[in-house]
């Protein structure tokens, strides 16, 4: 029984996509939902983070859509560990802070504290329209609307919710300072 799985796995195609560093049209179709919007290089700092990046996610008032997509990054399809990413429960171990959702007042102190606990060099990724501008909820009572004034944002990824391929591109951008380009795809990205 067990050996049959070996044979089956040898014959089957791997589930994991090469996207975003290799062209993959199947996965690319989701990436239309948004694009890596802006890259604030001044907040990125000089020293680079190499490919072993621990991510701490903070939900500051999301609809759990961004969480749902983030949890799919560990799935065999997107498998972000191939780039050296991993989630960590502890901000002190994190290199990258991913903030999702509108920024509610009770969460401001929490975000600041998590950010302060991270060692340098560190980056901040604002994930989704809510974290960037407040989206549909910017007029809600107790909602700040943008992560920008709370901590220094390195990269923002648009989308509601941003699809996993977009999040992957955003994560790689936060490390490298530039949007990853698929090998052999030229400047088309």
């Amino acid at each position, binding site marked *: 029984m067990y050996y049959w799985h070996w044979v089956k796995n040898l014959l089957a195609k791997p589930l994991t996509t090469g996207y975003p560093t290799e062209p993959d049209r199947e996965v690319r179709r989701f990436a239309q939902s948004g694009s890596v919007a802006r890259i604030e290089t001044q907040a990125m700092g000089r020293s680079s983070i190499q490919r072993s990046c621990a991510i701490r996610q903070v939900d500051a008032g999301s609809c759990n859509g961004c969480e749902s997509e983030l*949890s799919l990054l560990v799935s065999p399809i997107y498998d972000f560990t191939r780039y050296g990413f991993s989630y960590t429960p502890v901000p002190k171990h994190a290199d990258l802070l991913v903030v999702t959702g509108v920024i509610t007042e*009770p969460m401001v102190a929490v975000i600041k504290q998590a950010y302060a606990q991270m060692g340098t060099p560190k980056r901040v990724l604002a994930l989704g329209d809510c974290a960037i501008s407040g989206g*549909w*909820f910017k*007029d809600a009572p107790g909602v700040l609307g943008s992560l920008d004034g709370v901590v220094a944002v390195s990269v923002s990824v648009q989308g509601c*919710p941003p699809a996993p391929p977009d999040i992957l591109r955003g994560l790689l951008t936060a490390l490298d300072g530039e949007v990853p380009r698929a090998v052999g795809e030229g400047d088309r990205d």
Partner: protein
Amino acid sequence: MGVVGRADEQTFDGLTSWMDAWAKAREQGWETILVDGRKDGLSTLMFHPAGGSHQELLLTPSDSFTIPLPQDSGLGEAIWSLSLAVEDLPWLGWDHPYRDRSVLGKGIFTYPLGPVRGDVSESVFYRLQVMGDDIVRLTVENGFKRRHIRQLCRGRSWSDALALVERMTTTSTVAHALAFSLAVEDAFGWSVAPQATWIRTLVAELERMASHAGDLASLAASTGLPVPQMEYLAVKELVLGVNFDLFGHRYLRGVIVPGGVRAPSQRLPQSEEYAKAQRTLSSGFNQVQSVRQGLDRTPSFLDRLHGTGIIPAQTREFVRPVGPIGRSAGRPMDGRSAHPYLAYDQLEFHPPVLSEGDAFARYVIKAEELAQSFAMVLEILKWPERLSAGTESEAMHSEVRVSERRTGRAWIEAPRGLMAYRVELAEDGKLNHLGIATPSQRNWYVVAPAVAHQNILQDFPIIDASFNLSVAGWDG
């Protein structure tokens, strides 16, 4: 058709008589669907599974102040709804309706956990009090991420309000859009084309599949089994991909609108697209079955779930949990069969019910419902002519007549359980009031008693994952 239509309304001006009527109806088997603080008072909408009838108990403003809290009299279905109602109806005179208790004593240690916790998780704060390994008490504190959706919707047009309620909980986007649309259709007296009804049934079940697959993935992860976790995540991604191919959004946002359905960024799918989706989902179905067979033969998984996180009988009677959580604890309440809406009366499914109320029962119910939803979707896709509507690309309104009532109510079975909406519309179609009951705002009050019930600290992640409720749907 999913909507309540006419409900017997009884009005009370004293709180005690209102609460007595509520408690009495509850004893007679009525289910509380929605507790809603609105301008003219505080109302409880109830449903009787045997007769299929609805009644609404309305408490009008009064100035009697010797008021016990409903949850102190054993009515625990609407603790969060009542604390929302107090914000709008100060004459109720309750200070914060949910009182927190903690345990003091020698040897009690308190673990604070949250709001930043876990790998990827929503913001909620747990305070675990343990004596050695035993959990003696858990308090769950929410309210870190309130977006005040009910308040924001007031005075907006229904199309704006739809966009807001769809973002209440994205893993239940369809359920929120559907309940809202049914309520608006109930208010205006609109009826919907049969194709739209079938498409709505299809998307509702697709969403249940994605949600349950995600829940099962986190349950597998909590017991330290990455292989089934990855397999369930692959199934979830497969369903989300089908959603995107058919309707242009991975979480089916914008598909259901009052009056019909539409595909926001493309034309509605045709038979060949449905046939392709059916092929993809058939392979997903096989995958789901084989993962489940594997898990059912894995003692390290089953042993961790059996007898873990049992919902105490008193809590079950107090909160009356809904959805898969309720069905795992001996409450056979499923909106799809209790009052058939959409096309559920033409589909074969048997909501599973277990009485144990432990993490294993919740796993079995979710796995079984996932399989049944797959079977239902494959059955729907067998008849693409029932779904396709010629070349139409937009909403499929049928006859539109404007009713006088302008108040609509609807309740449905969301992936996490019973969800109810009550809308009051102004003449120009703007919302005067919106009452929402989400399954999570009710079921969250089961979590703490189930955790602090003969469990040890190491059980906590498993129990947490076996509930997998939405914090966004609780905070609102």
